[in-house]
């Protein structure tokens, strides 16, 4: 209709077509063509709202990122961040060549891959099965009970593990002796053999129900007519689960899987630290607990720079991982996180 190069803006100026109506409406609303600066000035109240959050963001999120440069320095409290001596990659080199490098990275990867393999499919399976339960009341009971552990704090969770697996007074041991086996012959908390089992499966206990909600939401969006039509065609419930329900949650699975891969080096501090004791360090020392020990416990002389270097190495690996996974997902799927 318009010659090439005749931009929308000029179309509007020309005052022809639907734009005419549009511009009038825009003028009425006081949002007509205005310069960028004019619009910024008009929205001053919005920036006033954002003032406090942005100051907070810069101070509590970006200042520590700036402070992370002590990883490249020999930081001394008295000299401050920029006053301390620059040592380049020395701290990183020290970590990569120490015995703790293999141990902490290995334990971190082991735990997160173990939890990916076990903890990722179970909520999906759980959601698919729960979604096909026919009794509303029974389904409600399962939901109420299995969501609850999510709200238990990590400290209480580990405390509960200690109680339930207690050799003398715990539920498992009591049950075991009821079956005639006497007291439980081993203590789950002693030695490094059971640390991972306990860590991962208590995570399954706590997180499976809650983790399934996101899939349940996707499943509730499935058109019931699909199921009816398939039933009429003679499909069994299992076939409907495979051919209707499962495809419906594949997009959700993709997103959660991306997130999981992105945090493959991100075993949190709390649970590992709380479950740690002197006998299980070979399995329980992960990067985050080691960062804490090196940096903030007196026995390690509070080596701030070295600890920051280890933490920074971990953060960078995480950032690379999630960017990589997102890139691949964009390529293959056309849908990533950003």
């Amino acid at each position, binding site marked *: 209709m318009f010659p090439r190069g005749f931009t929308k803006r000029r179309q509007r100026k020309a005052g022809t077509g639907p734009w005419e109506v549009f511009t009038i409406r825009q003028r009425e*609303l006081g949002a007509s063509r205005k310069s960028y600066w004019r619009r910024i000035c008009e929205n001053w109240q*919005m*920036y*006033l*709202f*954002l003032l406090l*959050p942005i100051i907070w*963001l810069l101070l*509590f*999120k*970006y*200042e*520590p*990122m700036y*402070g*992370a440069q*002590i990883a490249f320095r020999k930081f001394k409290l008295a000299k401050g961040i920029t006053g301390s001596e620059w040592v380049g990659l020395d701290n990183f080199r020290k970590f990569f060549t120490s015995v703790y490098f293999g141990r902490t990275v290995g334990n971190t990867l082991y735990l997160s891959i173990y939890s990916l393999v076990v903890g990722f499919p179970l909520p999906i399976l*759980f959601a698919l*099965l729960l979604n096909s*339960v026919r009794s509303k009341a029974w389904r409600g*009971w*399962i939901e109420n*009970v*299995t*969501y609850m*552990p999510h*709200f238990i*704090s990590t*400290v*209480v969770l580990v*405390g*509960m593990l*200690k*109680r*339930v697996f207690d050799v*003398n*007074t*715990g*539920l498992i041991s*009591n*049950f075991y002796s*009821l079956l005639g086996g006497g007291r439980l012959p081993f203590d789950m908390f002693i030695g490094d053999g059971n640390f991972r089992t306990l860590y991962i499966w208590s995570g399954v*206990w706590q997180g499976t*129900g809650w983790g399934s*909600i*996101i899939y349940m*939401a996707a499943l509730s969006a499935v058109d019931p007519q699909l199921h009816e039509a398939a039933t009429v065609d003679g499909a*069994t419930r*299992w076939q409907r689960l495979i051919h209707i329900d499962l495809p419906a949650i594949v997009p959700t699975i993709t997103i959660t899987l991306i997130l999981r891969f992105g945090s493959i080096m991100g075993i949190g*501090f*709390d649970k590992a630290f*709380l479950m740690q004791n002197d006998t299980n360090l070979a399995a329980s020392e992960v990067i985050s607990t080691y960062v804490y020990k090196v*940096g*903030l416990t007196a026995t390690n002389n509070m080596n701030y720079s070295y*600890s*920051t270097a280890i*933490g*920074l190495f971990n*953060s960078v690996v*995480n950032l690379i991982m999630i960017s990589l996974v997102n890139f691949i997902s964009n390529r293959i799927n056309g849908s990533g996180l950003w």
Partner: protein
Amino acid sequence: MSMSAAKPAGKAKKSPIKISAADRIYYVVINVLLGAFFVIVLAPLINIVASSFSSADAVLKGKVMLWPVDFNLEGYKAVFDYRGIWRSYANTIYYTVLGTFINLFMTMIAAYPLARRDLPLKKPIVMLFMFTMLFSGGMIPNYLLIRNLHWINSIWAIVIPGAISVYNMIIARTFIQNIPSDIEEAARIDGCSDAYYFWRMVLPLSKTVIAVLALYYAVGHWNDYFTPWLYMNKPEKYPLQIILRTILIMNTFDAESMMEDDLIANKALQDLLKYSLIIVSSAPILVVYPFAKKFFLKGVMIGALKG
């Protein structure tokens, strides 16, 4: 009349389709599997409750399974007599209430402008927020910041650094974006200022999401162990979770904060106290849970929308 007739008819429509033998097996199998998981999740919870109401002797001898043995409140009495627990309980309530208020205030004032469609510079600001979800300075730089602010042993160290969870902010933003734009246009034509519109329209219309966030944040503060562990080193400032760790995990009892002298010597009572303590410390969440469940679920749904 017609309504009541319609309902059975709707059901009757389904019933002619017979459940096949394959389906019957399917339903038996899934109910057994789900039932097993149900029991696995529930049994430890019930065991803790049952033990907490049993006698110290019954717990020590390993008699308690899923029902209290020698129904007894001595465990709870021991918890009540342990002064350190109550001081930390009060601290936790204080941190949780103040922290949640600050969280809500900061989250909402950030979410509202970023929910506006036509705000200039919105994109870079959102990116500034989002990037912090992917990368952080780490434990030590954060610790040094708090130290330099002289916030060690101060409540500010607990409530300010985590004032906004970007994830929750995005939930709030998504919610505000879904407020019909007619309302805003009408308000603007009436000459309503942004601040006034936020106060009189956005906040009242966002009650649901505020409830969701309040619950998320409050549970987060209640259960937080890491922050106070890093920034608090005076026992009188400790929140509940730190006391819980010393008792439940380290198995350490502080003689000074006990009224009953025999607790030190009484190993059985110490064990019983742990069960009762688990219940007492989780009680607020367990009491709120049935009422709050739908809000928690709502939060997941809004979050999932944004994917």
